[in-house]
């Protein structure tokens, strides 16, 4: 990590040396927050939204932008469950395992998905097509069990329906 710091520690507000436009979006968010250090979580949200996950280069960029030690940025990025340091799949499927959903059988939904895809929760299929995640509760408990397919909440989901949905994404592993 040390060596990359020096490699990248050039002008921080100008265009990123890689020419990657997504850094621009980060700059805008940081600027809007006046480079305040307490905006770190918001900036990381933006970074994850733009890049899909928080790669080391991005963490370094944020650390420099907010003038924070990398250890602090890294510490925050690893503390919160929603931040991911690994790339996620083209599609994401989040099964709620909160109490209401659990009591209504979300475990079976997850199991069916795991079986079909051959991956466990928290993993991505080898071809990078889909990430399977779980949530602690997404606040849709009234329509449990709930699953979020690519950001859209679905309620009262049966295992077959979930399988059907990922089939539409072209996922046919396992």
């Amino acid at each position: 990590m040390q060596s990359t710091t020096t490699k990248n520690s050039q002008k921080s507000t100008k265009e990123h040396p890689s020419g990657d436009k997504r850094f621009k979006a980060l700059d805008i968010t940081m600027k809007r927050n006046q480079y305040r250090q307490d905006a770190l979580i918001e900036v990381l949200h933006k970074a994850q939204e733009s890049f899909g996950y928080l790669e080391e280069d991005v963490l370094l960029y944020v650390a420099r932008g907010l003038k924070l030690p990398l250890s602090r940025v890294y510490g925050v990025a690893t503390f919160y469950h929603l931040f991911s340091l690994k790339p996620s799949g083209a599609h994401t499927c989040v099964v709620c395992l909160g109490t209401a959903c659990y009591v209504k059988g979300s475990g079976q939904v997850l199991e069916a998905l795991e079986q079909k895809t051959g991956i466990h929760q928290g993993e991505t299929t080898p071809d990078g097509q889909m990430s399977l995640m779980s949530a602690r509760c997404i606040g849709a408990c009234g329509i449990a069990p709930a699953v979020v397919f690519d950001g859209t909440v679905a309620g009262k989901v049966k295992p077959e329906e979930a399988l059907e949905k990922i089939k539409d994404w072209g996922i046919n592993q396992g």
Partner: protein
Amino acid sequence: MDITELQEIAEKERANQKEIRVHCCTSTGCRAANSMGVKKNLEAAVKDHGMSDRVQVVGVGCMGFCGNGPLVEIDSKEKLYEQVTPNDAESIINSLNGGGIPTAPEGDLKHPFFARQVRIVRETSGKIDPERIEEYIAAGGYQSLYKVIHDFTPQQVVEEITKSGLRGRGGAGYPTGLKWATVAKMPPGQKFVVCNGDEGDPGAFMDRSVLESDPHRVLEGMAIAAYAVGASEGFIYVRAEYPLAIERLEIAIKQAKKLGILGSQIFESNFDFKVNIRIGAGAFVCGEETALIASIEGGRGNPRPRPPYPAQHGIWGNPTLINNVESFANIAAIIREGAEWYASIGTEKSKGTKIFALTGKVKNNGLIEVPMGITLREIVEEMGGGIPGGQVKAVQTGGPSGGCIPASLLDTSVDYESLAKVGSMMGSGGMVVMDQDTSMVEVSRFYMEFCRGETCGKCIPCRAGTVQMYQALTKIINGEATEADLVKLEELCEMVKFTSLCGLGQSAPNPVLSTLRYFREEYLALLKQGVLNGKVAVHG
């Protein structure tokens, strides 16, 4: 903006509202069942039938009966339609002309699920468009804020809230007035007001619903609090899992600012109040107030020992008032109707109403706002409609910090003291009904898994204890445990409870302790065959 302008907005809005308002729920639950498609077709049907002059389709917040959505309500005709599909829309609009009956199932608004509710926090939820401040103002919104700024001294506001008997709705039930008084007494200077919308209890979505359905009510409560304690800046901390709530809050703040109801010189007084939104990133422990502060400051959400309490030493070391979403959402009504009115609802020590998220195996799933002192039986059997073809085995309240109350204690009154006495707690409002097929040992392992995953790792009893308790429970479930393991589990529970730093660790053993208290035989039945108190244990 002064009071006449506020009233003008209200009058203009009321005058513009059509004779028939067709309310279509656009909150998360119904959205997931395509209520936006329903709304689109309702609007098209109104146009097609040439009824735009007297009928208006309004996208509203959550009506509470989320389990049967999408919901469409025609307020003036006292009609509710459930599980409405876009195809039903035409028939609903047509029926307003006396043309036939709608094809969607009609709900029963006289059912105890609705009839037994007392709506204070949710008085306008599901009745107004949360994305238009004018609708909130037309329903009397922001008049309480005006009233306190012009007619009350800050101290009078604190006294009023104290007299109302309101207690915190975030879990612990600390008297709200007392907390406000502590912050108000701190020397003048930078102070903060924080609204805790982290809502981590899995199975609870009261705060989500309030934020999505009536964001201005929360903002008004926060502004009144800020006036009372002498704060000029506030934060609303919302979990990232609630994108619609965040979006609507952003809209609400913008609209209020534009009208001069938030920002500088509110209602032409010298009171300023600015609100920022902070978005969480998926950590249950951040609901704990000291962790919440750390997170607002942009750091890791690790709790710290108290005292000093946030009231004295909060954000960046400044006095900080932290209340839950629902606590703030009670404030405007208390100011409007008076403390005595509020205190007349509920029990001696628990005043007012509480919203519960009624979920699990019960027939009617959704949100209910009930007066304190109602019994669990009334909620589960009458309002919830019991369990179709099954039996209630237990009711879980308080989430991972609470406990399971057995069916034999369903007559327990819902108030802070009574729920604590039976080994559970009021909690934030999750209420999960479990039937005879639910294994209570698995339920306690479920919560332990939760705590094991959510411990922040700062102190050893919680970090290691939750792992060990989880392992012990797994061993029991796998039929590999002996009585000695059970004894060890109980010792662990006591140790973690009394030596953890924050509420997460202190309460993590509660689900185990309460199921051991009421469902011990289920644990015993799972133990390895062996001698148990002189008796032979049988495999379950």
